[in-house]
C-alpha cells in the first residue's frame, strides 16, 4: 500500500530529463523524420542484462519515456530502428543482421552501453564477435556501464525529436 502510494506520487512528478540539444546532422535528420514518435525494436546481442534493467526502468512511471514518444516495438517490421545492448556474441551476430534487414528503411541503430560500443569487459573473450559497430552500422552510441535511465532518455529524445 505504501509502495503504491509512493509510486503514484512519483508518477505524478516523473523525473526531469534534460533535452539533448541539437546533435550531429545525421541525428537531426532522423529526428526530423521521426517527428516525435520513435518505435524501437530491442535486440540483446549478448548483454549481462544490466542495460536491460536500465531500459526497462526508462518505461517505468519514474522516467516514463513514452511521454517523449519513445516506445519499444515487438516486431522490427513496425520499428524505426534497433536498440542493441551487449557485445555481439557469435550466436547473435546473424540474428542481429537479420533483424536489421527486417526493419524498413530509413532506420537507425542505437548501441546502448559500453559493451555495445567497444565490448567493455568482454573484449577479446571467447564467443564474442565484436562490438555492435563491427557487425552493423551504428548511428548513435550511449556510453555507460550501464548507462543510467536519464542518459538513455536524453540520447533517445535527440532521435525522437522531442
Amino acid at each position, binding site marked *: 500500500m505504501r509502495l503504491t502510494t509512493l509510486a503514484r506520487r512519483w508518477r505524478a512528478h516523473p523525473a526531469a530529463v534534460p533535452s539533448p540539444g541539437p546533435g550531429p546532422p545525421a541525428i537531426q535528420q532522423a529526428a526530423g523524420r521521426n517527428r516525435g514518435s520513435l518505435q524501437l525494436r530491442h535486440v540483446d546481442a549478448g548483454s549481462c542484462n544490466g542495460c536491460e534493467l536500465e531500459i526497462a526502468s526508462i518505461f517505468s512511471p519514474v522516467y516514463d519515456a513514452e511521454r517523449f514518444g519513445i516506445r519499444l516495438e515487438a516486431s522490427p517490421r513496425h520499428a524505426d530502428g534497433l536498440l542493441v545492448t551487449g557485445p555481439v556474441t557469435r550466436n547473435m551476430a546473424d540474428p542481429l543482421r537479420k533483424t536489421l534487414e*527486417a526493419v524498413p*528503411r530509413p532506420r537507425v541503430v542505437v548501441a546502448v552501453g559500453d559493451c555495445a560500443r567497444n565490448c567493455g569487459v568482454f573484449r577479446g573473450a571467447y564467443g564474442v564477435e565484436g562490438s555492435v559497430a563491427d557487425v552493423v552500422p551504428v548511428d548513435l552510441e550511449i556510453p555507460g556501464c550501464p548507462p543510467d535511465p536519464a542518459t538513455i532518455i536524453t540520447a533517445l529524445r535527440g532521435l525522437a525529436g522531442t
Partner: protein
Amino acid sequence: MTGALLVATALLGLAASLAGAIAPGRIRTLLSSVLTIASCGFGLAVATEVLHTGHVAVVHTDRLLPLSGFSLMLDRFGALFVAVSAVVGICAMVFRLGYDGHGLSSRTASSVLPLFVTTLLLVPTAASVTTFLFLWELMAVSSLLLVLVDHRRRPEVQEAAQWYAVMTQFGAAALLLGLVLLATRTGGQSFAAIAAGSAHLPSWVKSSAFVLVVIGFGSKAGMVPLHVWLPRAHPEAPGPVSALMSAAMVNLGIYGIVRVGDGLLGGGPVWWWLLVMTLGALSALFGSLHSATSTDLKRLLAYSTTDNVGLMLLGVGASGLFASAGHQSLALVALAAALLHVVFHAVFKGSLFLTASSIQQATGTRDLDQLGGLLKRMPVTGSLFLVGGLSIAALPPLCGFVSEWLLLQAMLHGLPSSNPAIAVAMPIGVGVLALTGGLTALTFVKAAGIGLLGRPRTKPAAQAGEVHESMWIGAGVLATLCLVFGVAPFLVIPAVLDAARNVIGTHIPDPLVGGWQVGLSGIHGVLAPGLLGLGLLVAVSLVAGARRLVQRAAVRRTEAWGCGREVQTARMQYTATSFGEPLTRVFEDVLSPSHDLDVSHVAESRYYVEAATFHTSLNDGFERHLYRPAAGGLRWWGTIARRVPNGSVHRYLAFGLVALIVVLVVVA
C-alpha cells in the same frame, strides 16, 4: 426428332461402354472418351431443343424391360438436368484424357465410366417407375464400381465404397417403397398416370410416399443425416468420377424430390416443405462447418457439396411452402433460384473437383497441410481453382453470387406473408444462407491460401509441375462458364424459369426482370451482374493504377521475419489445421474434435523429451452417434441370427415343415 436424338444418346453411351470393354489398351481411353463426349453432345442437343421449344421428347419400347416396357420422356424440367449432366460429362471426359492414375484406364473402368455418364443423362428422362428405378440402380452400381477402381492399392477406398454401397442401397430401398406405393395406389406405373391419379390419393399415402422419396433422393444428394458416404466416397473416387458425382449425380437427388413432390404429387401440406427446409438448413450448416475445418482438399469439396445441396433444398422447401400458402409467383422464383443453384453448383463444383484432382495428380496428396506454393508451380490449374473458389464463395462477378442472391431475395420477400410457417421459416432460412455464405468464403480462403500460396511444405509439392493440357481444358471450360454465367445470367435464367414452370404450373406469369438485369418484377431490388462485373473491373484497375502512380520508393524484398532464426522452414507456415482451429473451438459441440498428445522421454532423464507426436481429428457427429451404434446393433443381430442355421440338416427340414404349416394356416 428429339426422340431419335435421345435414342442416339443412349446408343452412343452403350457404344462407348462397349469400346471401353473391347478396344486395345492404347486407344481404349481415347475411343471410349470420344464416344462418351459424342453421347453427351447428343444429350445436350436434345436438352437444348426441348428447353427451347418445349416439345416433349418421348421414347417407348416394350422390348427392353419385361412386363413393363422401357419408356423415356424428356420435358423442360428434366432437360435442364440432362443439359447440366451433359456439360459436366463432356468436361470430365476431356479432363480424363490427360488424367492418369487411380486405374481409370483399366478395361473395367473404361467400360463402366461411359455407362455412368449415360445413366446420368437418362435418369431425368425416365417416364415410368420401373424405367426410373432401373436407370437409378444402374447409375448407383456403375458409380460404386468407379469408386472402387483403386481398391487394390488403397484400403480406405474399400471402406468408402462400403459406406457408399450401404447408403445408396438404403436410399434405393426407400425410393422403391415410396414409388411402388404411389404406383399401386394410383393404378399406373407411368409418371403421367401417377400425376393424374395422385389428386385422389388419401393424404397418408401421399405423405408417406413423400417422406420415403425424400429419404431415398436425400441419400443420393448427400443431405444430412444421410450424407456420411459423401465425404468418404467423393474424395476416394478418381478425379473425373468425383467431379461427375459431385456436380451431376447429387443434382438428381434434387431432381427427384422436385419431380415427385411438386410434379407427381402436385405439392403438399406445409409440414412437407418445412421438413425439406429443415433438412436443407441442417445440411447447409453442417456441410459448411465441416468443409471450413477439413484439411483434405477433396473432403473439403465433398462437404461443401452437402452444404450446397442444403441451399438447393432450402430453395425447394421455400418454393413448396410459398405454393402451399398460395404465393405462386414467389414459389416459382424460389424454385428457379434452387434450380439456378443446381446449374451453377455443377459448373463451379465440377471445375473445383477437376482442378483438385489435377493438384492431387501433380503432388500425390490431397492434404492441404502438405501442399503450398502451387500457384507458382501450376499457374493455370491454380488460377482455375481460384475462379471456382471465388464462384462458390458467392463473390461477384461469378455465377455463385447470382443464384445465392436470387435465393436470398425469394426468401426475404416471403417475410411480409401472414402465414405463420413462412413467417418463422424464412428468417431462419436467410440466417442459414448468410452463415453458410461466410463459412464458405472462409473455407476457400483456406483452400487457396494454404494450398496455392506460401511456400511448398513438402518435396512433392515443391516439385509439382503443370498437368496435361486436356486437364486444363476440361476444368477451364467449366471455370469460363462460371464467369460467363456470372456476368450474363440471362443466358440460363429463362431456361431455368421454363423448367421450374414446367413442374409447378404453366399459368404463372414471368416474375423476373429480363435482359442484363436480374430482379423480381413488382419488388424493389434489381441485380445487374454485368454492370457489377464492369464496375469491379474499373474499380480494381483504378486502384492498381493509383498505386502505381503513388508508389515512390523502390520495393525492397527481404526474407520473411522469423524472429531472427537462422533457418526458416516451410513447415513454420500457417497450416489448414491452424486456420480452422478457432472455428473448431467455437463449434466444439458439433465438430467434436479429438486430440491425442504422445510424449516420449529419453531413457536417462524424464526432464528431456525425445519425441512428441500430436494427432488431431474431427469427427462426424452423425457417424459417431447414429451410424456406429446402428452398425453395432446390426452386427449384434447378425451374430445372434447366425446361431439359428447351425448346419444341421434336421433343423433345416424342421424349419421347412414349420414354414409350410404357417403358410397353410395363414392361407387357409
